[in-house]
């Protein structure tokens, strides 16, 4: 078959649910449920935070952005102060836009309540240095001093919530959202002390799911979001507990993905049948 016809079939298959905005309920994913419970159980006292690494850019935004959104929405709803930061230089835009969008959505949903920058979250920006940076971060006795300033150049001490963060023991949750090989490993390997290892959850792209399962199985990971499907099920859990939560767009995206898989499987089966019939004909004739 002309390859361009296959592209067209795939694009049309994907576009139909998006155009008509219909969606199916997402499949239940145990690892996403486990992650929901982990975040639900986080108790952050004075000076305690969640560290959310958004290590993704345009290349994996399709899967990582919905994951980052549901994680941040859950943390914001639970009023856990969040430090967003990244080891990936192309994450600059998402570090700024995603928490601000979630905060704005929640403020719209709950008039009278606010999620302000510097109170609900702070953006520590791009953190270069890989393993060495991660070791220094784990060894820092005062994270406010370690980060120094936020991405806008304001000292952390300017914001009362983040003025005296203390060391790694004050990090109650680490969430790593990435599709980059090696970046996630840096946290597993170096963000720990001999007597303390923060709870770690991970949003991964579909490509890295098989790899991530190893860490889940060894209990180095406490929860996992597998691609769009993981984010979709997590958003469904959020909606069950907070009916005002919006996940229509994500469910449409998940449905389009399911349909594209079905079409792809049909094309594979059809291709094999055609190939088989042709082979039989050529051997007969």
């Amino acid at each position, binding site marked *: 078959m002309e390859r*361009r016809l296959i*592209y067209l079939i*795939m*694009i049309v298959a*994907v*576009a139909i649910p*998006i*155009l008509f905005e219909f969606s199916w309920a997402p499949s239940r994913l145990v690892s996403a449920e486990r992650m929901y419970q982990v975040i639900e159980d986080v108790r952050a006292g004075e000076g305690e935070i969640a560290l959310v690494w958004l290590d993704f850019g345009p290349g*994996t*935004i*399709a*899967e990582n952005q919905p994951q980052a959104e549901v994680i941040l929405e859950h943390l914001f709803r639970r009023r856990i102060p969040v430090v967003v930061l990244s080891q990936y*230089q*192309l994450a*600059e835009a998402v570090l700024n836009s995603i928490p601000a969008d979630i905060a704005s959505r929640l403020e719209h949903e709950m008039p009278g309540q606010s999620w302000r920058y510097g109170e609900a979250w702070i953006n520590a*920006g*791009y*953190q*270069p*240095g890989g*393993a*060495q940076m991660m*070791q220094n971060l784990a060894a820092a006795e005062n994270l406010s001093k370690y980060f*120094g*300033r936020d*991405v806008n*150049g304001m000292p952390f001490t300017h914001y009362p919530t983040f003025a005296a963060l203390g060391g790694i023991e004050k990090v109650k949750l680490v969430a790593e959202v990435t*599709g980059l090989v090696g970046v996630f*490993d*840096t946290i*597993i*390997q*170096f963000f*720990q002390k001999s007597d303390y290892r923060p709870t770690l959850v991970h949003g991964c*792209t*579909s*490509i*890295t*799911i*098989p790899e991530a399962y*190893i*860490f889940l*199985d*060894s*209990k*180095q990971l406490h929860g996992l979001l597998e*691609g*769009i499907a993981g984010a979709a099920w997590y958003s469904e859990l959020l909606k069950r507990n907070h009916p005002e939560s919006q996940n229509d*767009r994500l469910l*449409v*995206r998940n449905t*389009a*993905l399911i349909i*594209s*898989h079905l079409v*792809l499987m049909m094309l594979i089966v059809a291709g094999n049948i055609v190939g088989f019939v042709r082979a039989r004909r050529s051997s007969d004739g």
Partner: protein
Amino acid sequence: MVEASMWSLVSTIIGGIATLAIFSFLLKENEFYRFFEHIFIGLAAAVLPLLTIRDFLWPKILEPMLGLNVVVYPDGTVSEPYQPLSLLYLLPMAFGCLYYFIYSKRHAWLARLVIGFSLGLSGALAIRGFFAEALPQIVGSFKPLVVFSAEGAINWFESFNNSLFVVTLLLVFNYFFFTFGKEGSIQGKIAPLGRPLLMVCFGAFFGSTVMARLSLLVERIQFIVRDWFSALLQVVG
């Protein structure tokens, strides 16, 4: 606010054009595609040094070293005292600059000092990282073959899962065991059993890779259909 929405509109329209330009490669290689490919590469290359300077070199190294982070208030007091020890940053910076001697035939040995230091550092980090990452996985692979529930009954599903895991682990280990000749031995006879298990693993990797690519397609189509068309209609209307 008006400016922000205008900026959002413009960036959405440019984003849509860039997406269509990259998708045009599906038809055939063309100049429209090439133009945007070069823009993407240029942007990605420029962002790294810019952010390294803005978020790291300037605020964490140069500002403290030059004392520019010290604010003098009108009453003459200062926000924080100048730390002369920050001048010690000059030593590793000077050492790092030796790398540029790689361009000199006569003094290239100076660059090798930096390279050697970097290799040693990376090696040490890799060893530490390996143990921190792999040890819990090795411990995690010691699974009970028979799992009992809280009531004392056998949990058949978990027991089967664990047995499958252990059998797969041993067969794949055996497949990659090349220390002794396998010909004629039991080890050699069971070695091929590792191959189909590896193929299952590769299949899972391939399937998940296809899923990731389709996710990208879905997100872009959603952007084009919902956001880009709306932005275009706003401009036209």
